[in-house]
Structure formats: structure tokens, C-alpha cells
């Protein structure tokens, strides 16, 4: 499936990747290629191994087995913004930034996520959505070839989440990093991603492309059909009946 897209050298290349914590096998035999600029969403139940996959790609987890080649400069946005509370919004974005004029670039990145004028705000002075946008600016200003998003919208309220999703979609269009978005939300995956993976029991159980023009509509018939199918799959392969989606 991914071979069709992988004209250029893939940004991510996993072969037989696995991870176990003690006796628990969290990931096993994962093969995955992600092409430059490709937007991939990863769905799965809690504990299915999707966050483990992301941490492996982020270089935060060295305890894996198999072959893992991940982006040369991956950037991560976590579920919570993880800003340094003692640094201003601008300083957080510019943190560790190399190259010419880090402050100017950080300023531009904050402007891009709609936070012009909030450069000198402390994180505590920003709303949850604004903080997550600072985190997004902090990731994007590094011009990553791979952007890893670990359920970045799950802590936001419904309205803020929609605008944050639109922002990510817009930023991806402009900068074209490869994206791996880990999410619980089937609709979110289908609205944003070129390709949706489903991880179940530590393996990739589903890997399909969705070639719909953007911006996508939630009520697009194909999207709705795909959502129904995916939800059914999540229901059928249910190892954790507590959480139907």
C-alpha cells in the first residue's frame, strides 16, 4: 500500500519493529513506511501500542527491537503542551533553535498559529488551546521532516478542537512535513489524514488510504462510510470492552 507513495526515500522506515515491557508485548513485527509529506493517522484502543509507536519514532524510547529509521529531525507535540512554565511563549518556541535569527523565526511561527501579540505571555496566562498552539509553533519552527502528534487535541474542548484541527491541516499544507497523528478519534483521523492505520494487539491491523479533497466535510458520504467501517473494526477486534472507541 505504502509502496505506491514511496517514490522518494521514506521519512520513516520500520522493519519488524517490536517493543516489550517485561512480559507484555506492546508492539510486534511492525513494518511501516511513511513518505515525505504524508499525513498518517494511527487509531487504536488505549494500550494498543500507538503511543509506544510514536515514542519510538520520536527517539524517546531506545528499548525496541527490529530496524527503526525515523526522520532526521522529528518534532513532537504531546497530549499536554509541555511548555516550560518559566519561559514566555516566545522563549518556549525559540528554545534550542539553531540557525540564523531564532527569535525572528519563533516570532513568525507564533504569528502563524495566530498568537501574534502574545509573545511575552507566560504559559499560565494562556488558555489550553493557546498553549497547545504554542507547542505546535515550537514543533513547526524547527521545520521537521516528521511531525509526531500524540493525541494533541484530546485535552481541548469540542470547539477549540475543531479550530486546532483546522490549524494543523493548514500548517501541514503549507510546510508539508510527514505527519504521524496518534488519536482516539476516528473522524479526526479521516478528516486530516491521507492514510489511516489501525493498531491492534501491537500490530498494524489496517492500513488504508483516503484520497478525498481537502477541506473535508464531516458528512461526506465516503468519509461516513469509512468511519462506520473503522468503528466496526474497532468494535470487532475489541480487547478492551470498557472503551468502545
Amino acid at each position, binding site marked *: 500500500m505504502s509502496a505506491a507513495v514511496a517514490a522518494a526515500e521514506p521519512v520513516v522506515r520500520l522493519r519488524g519493529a517490536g517493543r516489550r515491557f517485561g512480559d507484555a508485548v506492546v508492539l510486534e513485527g511492525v513494518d511501516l513506511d511513511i513518505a515525505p509529506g504524508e499525513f498518517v493517522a494511527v487509531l487504536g484502543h488505549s494500550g494498543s501500542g500507538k503511543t509506544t509507536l510514536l515514542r519510538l519514532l520520536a527517539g524517546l524510547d531506545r528499548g525496541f527491537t527490529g530496524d527503526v529509521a525515523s526522520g532526521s529531525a522529528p518534532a513532537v507535540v504531546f497530549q*499536554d503542551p*509541555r511548555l516550560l512554565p518559566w519561559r514566555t511563549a516566545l522563549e518556549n518556541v525559540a528554545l534550542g533553535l539553531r540557525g540564523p535569527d531564532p527569535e525572528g523565526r519563533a516570532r513568525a511561527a507564533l504569528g502563524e498559529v495566530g498568537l501574534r501579540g502574545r509573545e511575552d505571555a507566560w504559559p*499560565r496566562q494562556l488558555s489550553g488551546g493557546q498553549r497547545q498552539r504554542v507547542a505546535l509553533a515550537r514543533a513547526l519552527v524547527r521545520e521537521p521532516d516528521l511531525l509526531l502528534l500524540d493525541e494533541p487535541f484530546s485535552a481541548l474542548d469540542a470547539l477549540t478542537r475543531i479550530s486546532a484541527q483546522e490549524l494543523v491541516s493548514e500548517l501541514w499544507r503549507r510546510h508539508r512535513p510527514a505527519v504521524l497523528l496518534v488519536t482516539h478519534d476516528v473522524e479526526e483521523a479521516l478528516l486530516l489524514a491521507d492514510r489511516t492505520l489501525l493498531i491492534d494487539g501491537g500490530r498494524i491491523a489496517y492500513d488504508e488510504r483516503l484520497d478525498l479533497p481537502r477541506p473535508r466535510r464531516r458528512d461526506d458520504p465516503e468519509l461516513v462510510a469509512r468511519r462506520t467501517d473503522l468503528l466496526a473494526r474497532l468494535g470487532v477486534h475489541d480487547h478492551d470492552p470498557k472503551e468502545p472507541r
Partner: protein
Amino acid sequence: MATTSPAATAPLAAAPSRGPLRVRLSPRVLSPLAILALWQLASVTGVLPERTLEAPSVILATAWELTTTGELPEALLVSLRRAMAGLAIGTAAALVLGTIAGLTRVGDAVVDPPMQMIRTLPLFGLVPLFILWFGIGETPKVALVALGVVIPLYLNLVAALRGIDPDLREVATTLRLTRVEQVRHVIAPGAMPGALVGFRQSLGVAWLALIVAEQINASEGLGYMINNARDFLRTDVIVVGLLAYAALGLITDAIVRAFERRALRWRADGGRP
């Protein structure tokens, strides 16, 4: 007097233009003022003999006299110098030991057990040993202050370093910060609130240790002034000396708090722990 004062301050408390701090503080001044007034009254009427305690007015005059003769400023400077020397040595030692124990596993295993042992020693019980070791000059005084300073700062610093949010250290990894950048942007600011709490405790201990150390056998400084006054039954000079200690403690604490407010201004509460 005590009955008229509340009426006199009532408009002050009601005035909306005053800051909330002023309104809250002003009634609290009343009882100390009343005590001073009673004290003065007791002294004037002879109920409180001057051998026990001089009148506030006499103490004020003595303070002025000691200041103009230069005796008080000189003694104050000597004591301040001792406290600052001990504070500097103790702080430096606590920062080095605390950083080693707080950031490295080996350091923790090597440094922490002896520090926990020292912690249990009664500081002022060491005075006789210090005299035997260091004599009765400046060294035992500064050493006692330094030892008193080390422990609170060390303990708080280690706890603060261990308590740094691991999520933020992970962010430092994903942003590929260098070791120096990690210390500067994550570790030092992350440990700052706890370290400052420890430093303020250390400062308090420093003055306490100094007062005890200056009883040893001082030939200059506030302790010497107080001991001398005892021999001449000058309760007024003793009280002036005590007030000078208190003033030094308050002023240095205020300086640290001002620094704290600036260093921790990213907090909602303006730096209060």
C-alpha cells in the same frame, strides 16, 4: 489610647483607594503599639525596674547614641561580615553537594548518606568541638554558620532537583537541547522555587547560628556588644543589640524575597511558594 485608635484607623480601612495590603495590615499594628505604650508606662511608673528592662524611650535614645558614636554600625558590620562569610561558604557547599546528589545516582549514593547523618547532629551541640578544633577566633563562628546553612539548602535543593517534571526533561530531549541548555532552561529554573525555599531557611539558620557563635568569645561584633552590656547591667544596650540582629535578619530576608519575586514571576501568585 487603645480605645481611640480603632476609631482613628476606621476611615483608613474604609477608603477604597488604599491597596488591600494596607487595609489588612493597619489593624495589626495596634496591638504592638499598645504593648509598647504599656511597657513605657510600666517603666515610667517604676513597675518595671530598669535592671530588668529599660523603657522604650531610653532604648531609642541608646540606639541613637550607639549609632552616632559608631559603636553600633561597627559591631553590625562585623556580625554581618561573619554571617555573609558563613552563608557564602555554606551556600556554595550546598549547591555543589545538592547538585551532585540530586542529579546523579552515584552522587546520591555517595553524598546523601553522610549529609543525612550531619543533619541529625544538633548544630549548637557542636560548639565545644568547634572551639577545640578552631579556637575562639573567627573560624569557629564562620564554620558554625556555614554548617547551619548547608543542611536546609541541601535538602531542599535535592528534593527540588528530583521533583523536576520528567515530561519537561523529555521535551528537552525532543528539542535536542545540549546538556548546558538543559541545565539553563529546564533544570535550574525547575529547581529554583524549591532551592529558594531552602535558601530562606538557611538564611534564618545563619543568623541564629551567628548569635550563638558570637556568645563564644567575641572581641567585636553585636555579640560582643551584648555580652559587654550584660556585665554593666545595660539592658538598653542588650535590647538594641537584639533589635539589630532582628533588623539584619529582616533586611536580608527582604532582599531574598525581592529576588524570589523576580525569579519566580512566571508564577500566578508572584513567587510565593
